[in-house]
């Protein structure tokens, strides 16, 4: 990130995203990032477009309207994006989360090394558990969610804990996520994590049962005092770079990853949770290890 980058007058960013802007998860992470960009570019949002054709329609619409940067925030949007980007060679597109630019010079790709934060929080979880049982609630085994779950599992395993994970099969079924958490509770799990917008159901169970929780994608501290820490995506790191590139006339062709190293991923502790100092330093050590490559999250 270059702090001096600022959007020029009248710069417009169009975001097309699959869930609601306030999902405390995937969509919110990109909206929050766009909103902190310097120079107050105009942010246009089409949310809730989980239907790919509708998303394609919106992406095309923003491009046709002359928006300067169109962000297709959903790996499932690749199909239409590839076609549309070719129809609008003078518009910059960004596609996440993925690392594929289709070899097009006006498409940026971005993704998060969500396994890194997952790994660190897994290590913390293993250090905090008393029953030595840890549970993870995922939606569908795909993309960012899979990466995170695998990272968390690896971290927890490295700390010697028993890990069970479950994919509920839905990004949206809150009640099912709650049932999954209840199942974990009955199995003596005392630390949980999970990813995607339906986890709010699981956090509720954690709160009533006094199970510790680790969040991801957005800061979930406001969901309860049992939230130990959250991995937060700072997509602004990517967006700032893209912004400066566009001002230099480069419309794409580059692929980004946010991670601890480039400050695109940060671990935010919940002030309301009294984290033991040794666990906090363990976390910081692990982050440093990941940064310098001495720890592998895979």
């Amino acid at each position, binding site marked *: 990130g270059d702090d001096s980058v600022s959007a020029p007058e009248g710069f417009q960013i169009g975001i097309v995203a699959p869930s609601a802007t306030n999902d405390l998860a995937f969509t919110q992470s990109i909206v929050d990032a766009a909103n902190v960009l310097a120079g107050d570019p105009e942010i246009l949002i089409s949310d809730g477009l989980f239907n790919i*054709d509708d998303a394609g329609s919106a992406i095309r619409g923003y491009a046709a309207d002359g928006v300067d940067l169109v962000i297709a925030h959903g790996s499932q949007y690749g199909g239409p994006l590839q076609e549309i980007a070719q129809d609008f060679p003078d518009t910059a597109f960004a596609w996440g989360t993925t690392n594929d630019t289709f070899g097009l010079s006006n498409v940026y790709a971005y993704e998060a090394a969500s396994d890194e934060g997952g790994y660190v929080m897994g290590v913390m979880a293993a250090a905090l558990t008393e029953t030595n049982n840890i549970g993870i609630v995922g939606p569908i085994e795909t*993309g960012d969610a899979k990466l995170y779950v695998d990272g968390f599992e690896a971290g927890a395993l490295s700390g010697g804990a028993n890990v069970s994970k479950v994919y509920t099969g839905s*990004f949206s079924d809150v009640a099912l996520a709650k049932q999954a958490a209840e199942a974990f509770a009955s199995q003596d799990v005392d630390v949980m994590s999970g990813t995607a917008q339906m986890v709010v159901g699981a956090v509720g169970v954690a709160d009533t049962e006094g199970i510790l929780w680790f969040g991801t994608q957005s800061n979930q501290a406001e969901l309860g005092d049992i939230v130990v820490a959250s991995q937060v995506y700072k997509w602004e790191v990517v967006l700032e770079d893209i912004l400066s590139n566009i001002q230099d006339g480069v419309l794409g062709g580059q692929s980004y990853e946010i991670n601890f190293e480039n400050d695109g991923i940060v671990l935010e502790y919940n002030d309301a949770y009294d984290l033991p100092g040794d666990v906090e330093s363990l976390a910081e050590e692990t982050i440093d290890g990941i940064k310098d490559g001495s720890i592998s999250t895979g």
Partner: protein
Amino acid sequence: MTQAGASLRVSSKYLAYLVPLGAVGFALLIGAIMLLAFDASPIEGFRALFRGAFGSTDALIETAIKATPLLFVGVGITIAFRANVINIGGEGQIVAGGLLSTMTALWLPDLSAWIMLPAILIMGFVGGAIWGFIPGYLKAYFGVNEILSTIMLNVVAVQLMNYLLRQPLIDPAEIERGTRIPQTERLQEGADLPLLFGSDRLHIGPLLAVLAAIAAYILLWRTPLGYRLRAVGQNPDAARYAGIPVKRTITLALTLSGALCGLAGAVLVFGSEGHRMVTDGSTAGFTGSAGFNGIVAALFGGLHPIFTIPASFLFGGLLVGGISLQRAVQVPSALILALNGLVVIFVVSTDRYRQRLRDQDARRDALASAGASSVPLAADRGGGGEEP
């Protein structure tokens, strides 16, 4: 009576046309209030809606493409309704058709379009037919309410889709990359729906749907099979007493209805920009709720295949326009969904009134022609052939 009758007739017929339009207008009026609540200008919003739907060639093309699955489903729904079967399973049937046609394209070797195209369309048809046959059979032979069974089968279809796209059909590249997005690889080019008029968007889907509507019209009012479907729909007892196999006909009605929805599925896959099948874990992610919206289009079209053509186009325009409305005045997509619901509510709520206007018309016809001993037998009698 003839002179006065004729002028009255015209006005009542126009009224019947106007009722659903008025209903939509009323829904939009409420939409305007909702827009105001979001500090958005309704005028600007609706202008964007109209432009996005019908304002340019590109918009018209988008609308036609959006209307295509609605028309297939609407025609399928019409066939079912005419046989007095309520098919709420369009969503699942679209998915089934999409899946089977996708598998066909994946598993058949690269062949010329002349073989591939019919193959995927037929398999889309078959996939939907299977998903329609099940509730049809259960209704006819076990008396299982089709509204319920089709809703349940929608759930089964989406899980089947998730399973297939996450496991056996997943793009090998997704496994390699480790991202595991539940989608197939780009399907073979031979199966791309051919483009029309040199456009890079407009494919033959809309044309196929219009042909399907015409075929359904001929089927329903010019063939013995269609006659049986309508007879069973109007009075299953009388049909049975006359020797018509009622159970088989009911099964067939849902099967055909599902088959048309299945065609919508095939067109959604092979006419998509990505030329692949993707899931986000929900049905609507793939279908865009065409299975439900098609019902509205059918009602809008007075359950007549031909009138469902403009009805689908209008309704498709509303949906496409909704996306540009959202873009133009920056309201959440939920507003469009709520508006969509209002349109459905207002259209069905006024349907009774529309029917009454229509009946008035028919009765006047009967009275006016009383005495005249022989009048040419209109081909589409009993079908409400000319009403909206």
